[in-house]
């Protein structure tokens, strides 16, 4: 969990928090600066606006006051005129001509002084012009509203009236009529003066003021009636009484200015006004605000442009700051990450190294797994870690070690493979599986127990090892999602490898121990100093079993020292061994080997020692091995003897044959000569000597032949006690009186299978040998005993002849069974006695052996096979087994009556119909009278010209459905095989055979 690890309490805020705070600050500052810039600009703009507006209002106000004053002068001059007329017209009922003329002059003078006046007239009640500024009176009246004048006159109104402008005369120019009535003394209106003021006189001033186009000048009565307007005259005569100027402003101040709300044309205007109370006139000037604000507007673009520029600059600065800060922060973060990662890796490596070291020495695998689970949790900084092992059945896993699990959740879980758990899925997929969020995991269902414990993410690594190793899965879990990095995954996998190699090593170590302990050799590994580093079980048990000089010592002892001590005690082999070890270690020789005896004469054992070089971490060591070869040497000795005997047998057989031929010639010719010469002559006696010598030679060859085991034996069940007693009885009298012959037999000894006559001869030979070994008297003991066969298929009975005579030295004893080997002086014995005994024993399926020690006596033993009770055909044995029953007709061909009769009884007992014949010819004859034949049981060697094989081929030809079994008493198979009629496909029973062998053969053949 290197990269996303949360900071420990007390440390600075994490980089992202710091970064966002910085960013916020920069943004806030930038925003404030921008606001400031915008605000400042706005204020400037507003001030400009206000200043311009106020200036405009002030200007308009000043202007209007000026304009109003000119207007006032105009109307003041009208008042002056009216005042000067009062002297003539007030309290006058009629005007005389002079008055008229005077008034006329007055008016003309007035008009000439004030060109603004279109006309000036005085009317009487009849509305007749009585005086005018013009000479032509008719021109004066065109603009007058007669009724208005009349109303004025009749209304007796003496005030000045400024009338609504009217178009005057042919020019159509607008004029404002100003009327004043005059009363006579009775108070009656008699005359009225009317001044027609040219509106152009009023507007002309305005035009001259050069306020600029767009400004409007208005002259109105205080009741809202428009008297003049510049530039347009559209609304002249109309009323603006409902306008704010009239409804609000003129009533509050006589002079003022204001900004009017948007007009119908959408224009906002700055209006300045001045009220002339005396004339009840309002002069107003309206200036188009847009026009006023035109320079402001021009400035505004500049202001806004610079504001935008400034804001942009601030934004850019902020952006650069944030960006560079971000970069710095990113660099800082990646450096921090790298530092964390390095720290995390160092921790992982340390944990891994610790576990690895422990794995090399861990004896207890559970302890190792527990440590591995702890290492998993610490190394990945996770919440729980577990190690599960595949149950032998294969589809399930069981947690065998865990760390970080709460106490209540520590029961053993069994995880089923496949998609039922994270572990199981990993094992099923044969790949590491990282789940960043169990909540959204689709590939498998996390184990409910983990979900209960709040696990959110995990890593599971399968372990797949060869049989016998650790198969299962490792897993780490976190209560945070996405808590595991690639480093964590690799760490878990590395722990997996460590566990796998630990188990592999254990298996190898167990295997090595098993292999080394199963080796029968005693093995020890020595270091370069000769200290014993390792011994195998054979070494230990040998050391325990015996207090041997060599090998001895256990791990830690110095073997070279042991050898040195033994050598000092005079053990020659120890000296050789020590030298051999040193030679091997120094590299002088590749291997040292030696056979040596060990123990006393009572129990002499032989060992085969080897010393081989061993490389121990660069030092030269040695592997010392001692193998007990006592039995091998014994076997080798026996084999050597057997081979020698066999070779001797072959040799003697050949010699005997040739020698008999020679004797035949010698003795035969001697006899024939003797017949011719006569026995009583000197030559006859010489020939007799020759014949006697030939006779002795013939006896020798007989002996040789019996050694070479070429006798025809008739083995049968024999009671050994009886044979021993017979032999003793027979020889008792021939023994000297100083020799005691004893028969020591147990109450029961098992029957043996042997040729009784030959056994008898052999025993006699042995007893006579014993007698000869007792020149000064002694005891000869005949014994028989059952030998323990140790579960072997054939059991033996041992017959022995023991004397307490001179004995033989080992060299002589070793060769005692060889022909012509004798201790007797020349002429006293043939040296064939023991060799005949040996030949007999071997041919009977047994062995002959001899123990002898000089001065202590000799014991000769013949081990013969036990008779199983039913094997001997021609014997009394053979208990009927009623289970084996057959049906059919059988022809038994056997020349020996005894055997044939026995076979007949045996076969009839098995339910067969038996016919007999004593030869092949006899058999063919009786076959003619037999309608059916199921089986032929025939001897191979029979009197007559036809052997069993010849008979068999006849039967095959004539009776193809019949089964055939042949039997033979000849132990030498080549005898049978050399017959030219021999057919190996015909089953052959070797005599003697047991009833069960016969039954088995019958079953085979009859079932075919």
């Amino acid at each position, binding site marked *: 969990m290197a990269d996303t690890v949360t900071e420990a309490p007390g440390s600075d805020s994490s980089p992202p928090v710091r970064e966002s705070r910085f960013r916020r600050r920069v943004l806030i500052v930038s925003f404030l600066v921008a606001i400031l810039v915008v605000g400042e600009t706005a204020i400037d703009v507003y001030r400009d606006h206000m200043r311009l507006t106020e200036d405009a209002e002030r200007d308009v106000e000043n202007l209007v006051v000026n304009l109003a004053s000119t207007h006032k002068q105009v109307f003041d001059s009208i008042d002056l005129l009216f005042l000067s007329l009062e002297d003539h017209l007030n309290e006058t009922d009629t005007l005389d001509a002079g008055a008229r003329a005077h008034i006329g002059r007055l008016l003309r003078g007035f008009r000439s002084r004030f060109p603004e006046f279109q006309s000036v007239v005085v009317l009487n009640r009849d509305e007749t012009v009585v005086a005018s500024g013009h000479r032509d009176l008719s021109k004066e009246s065109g603009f007058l509203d007669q009724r208005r004048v009349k109303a004025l006159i009749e209304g007796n109104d003496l005030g000045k009236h400024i009338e609504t402008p009217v178009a005057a005369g042919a020019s159509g120019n607008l004029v404002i009529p100003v009327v004043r009535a005059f009363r006579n003394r009775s108070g009656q209106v008699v005359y009225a003066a009317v001044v027609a003021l040219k509106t152009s006189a009023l507007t002309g001033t305005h035009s001259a003021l050069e306020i600029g186009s767009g400004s409007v000048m208005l002259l109105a009565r205080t009741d809202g009636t428009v008297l003049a307007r510049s530039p347009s005259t559209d609304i002249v005569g109309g009323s603006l009484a409902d306008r704010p100027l009239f409804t609000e402003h003129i009533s509050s101040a006589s002079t003022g200015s204001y900004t009017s709300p948007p007009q119908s044309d959408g224009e906002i205007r700055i209006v300045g006004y001045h009220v002339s109370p005396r004339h009840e006139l309002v002069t107003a000037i309206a200036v188009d605000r847009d026009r006023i604000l035109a320079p402001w507007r021009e400035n505004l673009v500049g202001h806004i442009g610079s504001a935008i520029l400034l804001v942009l600059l601030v934004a850019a600065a902020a952006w650069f700051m944030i960006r560079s800060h971000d970069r710095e922060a990113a660099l800082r973060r990646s450096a921090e990450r790298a530092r964390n990662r390095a720290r995390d890796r160092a921790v992982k490596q340390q944990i891994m190294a610790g576990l690895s070291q422990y794995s090399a020495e861990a004896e207890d695998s559970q302890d190792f797994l527990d440590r591995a689970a702890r290492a998993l949790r610490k190394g990945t900084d996770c919440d729980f870690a577990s190690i599960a092992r595949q149950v032998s059945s294969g589809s399930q896993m069981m947690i065998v070690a865990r760390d970080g699990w709460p106490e209540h959740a520590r029961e053993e879980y069994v995880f089923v493979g496949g998609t039922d758990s994270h572990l199981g899925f990993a094992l099923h997929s044969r790949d590491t599986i990282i789940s960043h969020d169990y909540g959204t995991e689709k590939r498998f269902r996390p184990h409910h127990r983990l979900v209960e414990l709040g696990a959110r993410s995990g890593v599971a690594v399968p372990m797949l090892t060869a049989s016998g190793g650790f198969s299962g899965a490792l897993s780490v879990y976190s209560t945070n999602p996405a808590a595991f990095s690639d480093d964590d995954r690799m760490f878990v996998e590395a722990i997996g490898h460590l566990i796998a190699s630990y188990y592999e090593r254990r298996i190898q170590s167990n295997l090595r121990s098993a292999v080394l302990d199963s080796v029968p050799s005693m093995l020890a590994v020595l270091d370069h100093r000769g200290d014993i580093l390792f011994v195998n079980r054979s070494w230990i048990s040998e050391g325990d079993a015996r207090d041997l000089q060599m090998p001895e010592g256990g791990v830690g002892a110095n073997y070279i020292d042991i050898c040195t001590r033994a050598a000092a005690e005079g053990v020659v082999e120890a000296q050789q061994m020590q030298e051999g070890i040193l030679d091997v270690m120094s590299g002088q020789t590749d291997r040292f080997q030696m056979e040596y005896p060990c123990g006393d004469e009572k129990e002499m054992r032989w060992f085969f020692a080897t010393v081989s070089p061993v490389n121990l971490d660069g030092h030269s060591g040695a592997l010392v091995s001692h193998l007990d070869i006592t039995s091998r040497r014994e076997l080798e000795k026996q084999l050597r003897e057997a081979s020698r005997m066999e070779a001797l047998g072959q040799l003697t*057989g*050949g010699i*005997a*044959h*040739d*020698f*008999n*031929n*020679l*004797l*035949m*010639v*010698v*003795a*035969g*010719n001697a*006899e*024939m000569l003797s*017949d011719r010469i006569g026995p009583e002559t000197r030559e006859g006696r010489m020939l007799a000597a020759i*014949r006697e010598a*030939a006779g002795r030679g*013939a006896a020798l*060859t007989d002996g040789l*032949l*019996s050694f*070479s085991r*070429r*006798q*025809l034996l008739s083995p049968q069940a024999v009671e050994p006690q009886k044979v021993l007693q017979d032999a003793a009885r027979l020889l008792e009298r021939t023994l000297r009186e100083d020799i005691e012959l004893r028969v020591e037999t147990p109450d029961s000894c098992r029957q043996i299978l042997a040729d009784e006559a030959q056994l008898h001869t052999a025993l006699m030979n042995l007893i006579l040998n014993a007698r000869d070994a007792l020149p000064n008297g002694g005891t000869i003991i005949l014994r028989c005993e059952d030998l323990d066969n140790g579960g072997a298929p054939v059991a033996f009975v041992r017959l022995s002849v023991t004397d307490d005579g001179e004995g033989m030295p080992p060299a002589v004893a070793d060769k005692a069974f060889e022909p012509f080997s004798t201790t007797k002086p020349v002429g006293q014995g043939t040296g064939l006695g023991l060799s005949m005994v040996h030949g007999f024993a071997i041919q009977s399926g047994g062995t002959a052996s001899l123990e002898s020690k000089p001065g202590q006596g000799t014991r000769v033993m013949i081990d013969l096979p036990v008779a199983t009770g039913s094997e001997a055909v021609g014997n009394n044995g053979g208990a009927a087994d009623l289970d084996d029953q057959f049906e059919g007709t059988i022809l038994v061909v056997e*020349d020996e009556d005894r055997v044939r009769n026995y076979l007949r009884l045996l076969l009839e007992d098995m339910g067969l119909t038996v016919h007999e014949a004593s030869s092949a010819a006899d058999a063919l004859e009786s076959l003619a009278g037999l309608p059916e034949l199921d089986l032929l049981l025939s001897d191979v*060697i*029979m*009197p*007559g*010209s036809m*052997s069993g094989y010849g008979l068999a081929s006849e039967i095959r030809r004539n009776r193809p459905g019949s089964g055939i079994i042949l039997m033979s008493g*000849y132990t*030498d198979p*080549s*005898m049978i095989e*050399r*017959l*030219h009629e021999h057919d190996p496909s015909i089953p052959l029973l070797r005599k003697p055979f047991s009833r069960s062998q016969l039954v088995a053969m019958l079953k085979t053949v009859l079932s075919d």
Partner: protein
Amino acid sequence: MKRILLVDDDPLVLGTLREALDGAGYAVATAENGKQAMQELSRARTDLVVTDLIMPTQEGVETIMAVRKAYPTLPIIAISGGGRLDALSLLDVARKFGAAATLKKPFPPSVLVTLIGRILAERRGGESC
């Protein structure tokens, strides 16, 4: 004159026995192996065969069987000095295969002569019956 066929691989034995039988008044033919013996038998009528049992080319036992097959009534005397099997065993086999008598080497020539005489006399007696 009765004709006797002597079969033996040893010329010395053949010579000795021929000498004895000549002396006893028999016509003697010799063969050194079974094959020669069969040729000799086919060449002239023979009254008796004396054969050794160990011979290089054809074992004596087989010779006996061959002779018995070709000349069922011809008496055979088997002689043997032993060898691979001891003499007695071989002679036993020979007897079973039809040898009228057996002799174990070495034997005095007179015994053979006597034996032949007895067998031929029996044969004659048998024939006369």
